[in-house]
């Protein structure tokens, strides 16, 4: 009988890192002290007391406790698991509470999306008319903005950025079909998804599996499947690339004079190299599906996908403990992606100070949340899709097979001006139809009512001086640095 005090097992050190709030306080405190001292030294010479006080207030303002309130936690969750919220949406999820809100986001198949589906323009794939690039882009933006299942759209965007195909080679109808595939398998089994993607017309055109024939292997898909979709570089040899390419032979596209219009894939046995291959030390008469089944269980795949998911939803460069835990989850759940997401959204690390505003809003996130805030009409989606290009992101047209580089690369002098100008342009258009909201309400919905003191004062001054200028106030909020982050 062990009579040791049971409380010892609750010592903080025994808690895994993903269940510990990661504090930024110490770092901030140190940095702020140094910066404040330097700033004060400069300012004393200027001898302007109000400047000094402002500077001190701004430097001491931080994110300590930013995510302690449940409403802010839910707003954070909705920014990450979706595309931000309108006031009504935030009220709705806040009323559910964090646990039920998380469940609702994850179990979205129980939530009807009928209103959105009835309002979307129809994309016709039959007959002679083919959708244009603009049509599928605005269709998707509308989905992101109006869906009742935000995580479904967010994960579709994740897969589009990871399992990339683009309009530079594939046709709009093919990419529309691929988009629907990602939506239908958004939280499903990674093994199934990769097998489906390997036969997806847009992917087959984009990475040339369509032309990969017996005796004439084409390495493009085989290489990127490992380098970008599964293990990452360093886990395979050039021979593995060649043998994998042989295994994927046999799939071709049917129905369409031009490849980019062919909508059906089919396996043609005589094009398949049925010979013996040696792949990653195993030997057999492998098919493409066999290659996927060998790649998905590898630890490198679990680690890479877990890192990508956590970095997409929480913060970049996750701690190895977190990645390992998520990789374990992925493998124990037989490669179910939804299980990993549930783990991410319930980790303390997801709600830590380190996670708060740790991501730059991607152009898609910025545009959709701005559209939500300004309540623009359907015509706005077409213009908004076009406006994303100078921000560095064109839907269905990633820069290359690695998708968008993301992170701080979204922000340079050109894209920052474009982001602010986009808010300005939308405000001008919707000026007369804006719902009247106070600064407090707008700031609650858009920036968690968490602004640097100088900005808050500036906005309060503006609201007081221009009490009727709803548009001007909203613009100022959308242009803040706080709103540029997610």
């Amino acid at each position, binding site marked *: 009988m062990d009579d040791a005090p049971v409380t010892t097992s609750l010592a903080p050190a025994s808690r895994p890192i993903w269940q510990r709030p990661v504090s930024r306080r110490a*770092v901030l405190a140190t*940095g*702020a002290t140094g910066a404040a001292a330097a*700033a004060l030294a*400069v*300012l004393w010479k*200027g001898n302007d007391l109000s*400047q000094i006080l402002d*500077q001190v207030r*701004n*430097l001491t303002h*931080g*994110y300590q406790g930013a995510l302690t309130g449940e409403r802010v936690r839910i707003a954070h969750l909705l920014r990450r698991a979706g595309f931000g919220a309108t006031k009504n949406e935030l009220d709705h999820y806040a009323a559910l509470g964090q646990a039920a809100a998380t469940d609702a986001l994850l179990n979205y198949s129980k939530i009807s999306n009928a209103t959105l589906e009835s309002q979307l323009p129809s994309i016709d794939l039959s007959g002679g008319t083919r959708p244009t690039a603009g049509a599928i882009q605005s269709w998707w933006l509308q989905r992101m903005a109006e869906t009742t299942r935000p995580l479904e759209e967010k994960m579709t965007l994740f897969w589009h950025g990871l399992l990339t195909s683009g309009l530079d080679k594939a046709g709009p109808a093919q990419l529309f079909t691929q988009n629907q595939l990602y939506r239908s398998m958004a939280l499903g089994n990674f093994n199934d998804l990769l097998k489906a993607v390997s036969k997806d017309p847009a992917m087959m055109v984009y990475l*040339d599996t369509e*032309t*990969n*024939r017996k*005796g*004439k*292997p*084409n*390495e*493009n898909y085989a*290489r990127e499947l490992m380098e970008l979709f599964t293990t990452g*570089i360093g886990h395979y040899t050039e021979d593995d690339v060649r043998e994998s390419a042989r295994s994927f032979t046999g799939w071709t596209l049917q129905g369409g004079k031009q490849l980019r219009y062919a909508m059906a894939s089919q396996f043609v046995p005589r094009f398949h190299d049925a010979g013996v291959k040696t792949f990653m030390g195993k030997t057999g008469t492998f098919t493409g599906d066999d290659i996927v089944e060998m790649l998905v269980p590898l630890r490198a795949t679990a680690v890479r996908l877990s890192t990508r998911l956590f970095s997409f939803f929480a913060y970049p460069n996750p701690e190895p403990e977190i990645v390992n835990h998520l990789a374990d989850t992925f493998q124990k759940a037989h490669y179910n992606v939804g299980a990993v997401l549930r783990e991410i959204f319930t980790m303390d690390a997801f709600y830590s100070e380190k996670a*708060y*505003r*740790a991501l*730059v809003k991607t152009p898609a996130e910025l545009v959709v949340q701005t559209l939500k805030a300004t309540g623009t009409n359907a015509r706005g989606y077409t213009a908004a899709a076009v406006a994303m290009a100078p921000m*560095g992101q064109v839907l269905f047209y990633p*820069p290359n*097979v690695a998708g968008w*580089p993301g992170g*701080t*690369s979204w*922000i*340079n*002098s*050109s894209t*920052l*001006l474009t982001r*602010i*100008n986009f808010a*300005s*342009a939308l*405000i001008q258009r919707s000026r007369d139809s804006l719902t009247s909201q106070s600064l407090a309400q707008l700031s609650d919905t858009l920036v968690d009512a968490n602004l*640097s*003191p*100088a*900005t808050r004062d*500036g906005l309060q001054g503006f609201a007081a001086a221009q009490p009727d*200028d709803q548009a*001007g106030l909203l*613009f*100022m909020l959308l*242009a803040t*640095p*706080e709103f*540029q*982050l997610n």
Partner: protein
Amino acid sequence: MFSRRDLLKQGLLPVFAGSAVPSVFANGVAAAATDSPNATPSDRVLVLVQLAGGNDGLNTIIPFQDGAYHDARPTLRQDQGVLRLNAQLGLHPNLKGLKASWDAGQLAIVQGVGYPNPNLSHFASMSIWETASVQGGIGDGWLGRYLNYLDQVGENPNHALEGVSAGSLVPPELRSKTPVTALQSLRTFRLQPVNEHGTQVDVENPLMKFYSAFKGAGPAPFGALFDTTLQEALQASHALQATDASYQAKATYPAKSPIASSLKLVAETIVSGLGVRVAHVTLGGFDNHSREKPVHDKLLLDLDQALAAFMQDLQGHGVGDRVLMMTWSEFGRRVKENGSAGTDHGTAAPMFLLGAPVQGGLYGQQPSLTDLDNGNLKFGTDFRSVYASVLQGYLQAPASDLLGGNYEILPLLKA
């Protein structure tokens, strides 16, 4: 004594109020005023042309007399209309403008360029070329280090238009702590004023304050990033707006050609005297794993026509003597074509250096098409040797410091 920048950072100065001329613009005027055929190093501009996706070197500089070439390329070989450089080698038939430059002694071709232990991943290899390090990674770009060096020696410190790239993103080879401006249009590069009941309201001052305040509060690295970026944006946009907008192209650029539009924008930036030192443009689409011929033919045609118009435009404005163009691609293609009438990822490939500063001719060795490494060409010239030659011979910068090693200097450039 405060610098203007310090004052701006503290919000103690109205931003570019009244008639104050931004220092950037002052530099630009100075650069334009000293425009002359006897270019000093500080006038010199390097224009980097990235051929993204892996350009097929063997179908760019064509070894048309080599039986091994014809054997390896049963459907892709170019046997009609090759533009002969000598008895063995010729330019792709669509490179007529480059051929004219060759004839005028303004085209240097470095053959067989690569690096040891070639990486066949687009992204790993791009990173190696961008950082000039065979480890690749996320470090500063090799031209970012050059721009940073210019700041350190006091040439236009932190001048936001010293490095420009055409497009919406800053390419990794220009990355460093020195700002670089991604440009899509000189005219739209500005903060649009907000229309308040019929009057134009300036939003720069309040936004400068918001961004400055956030610098102290925001999470690293964003607070400083946003603040600095907004300052750079406003600095550059004021310089651009103060520029004499009289630029008229003195060449006809091809329509519907993104690379031509990009180069035209670069020409406008150079001609307008904004003090640009390094410019970057990208032509993508070279990853031709299947049905390569029509795609590659078109890409080379677009490249050639855009470069020809660019050179003509620069010469028409009297600045051609101080602009060097250089092409690069992350790798060449496999010698033997694949079964899809395309080529898979390869290794060594030629680079072009183009313009009046160039000492025309062929450099390096044409790689053997039979002595291969896993079906791929063996490189003869390290790409860092070309970089070193440009840094030292043209930009007159300390090549070995910036590249972290000593590489052979090739006589690619006129003294």
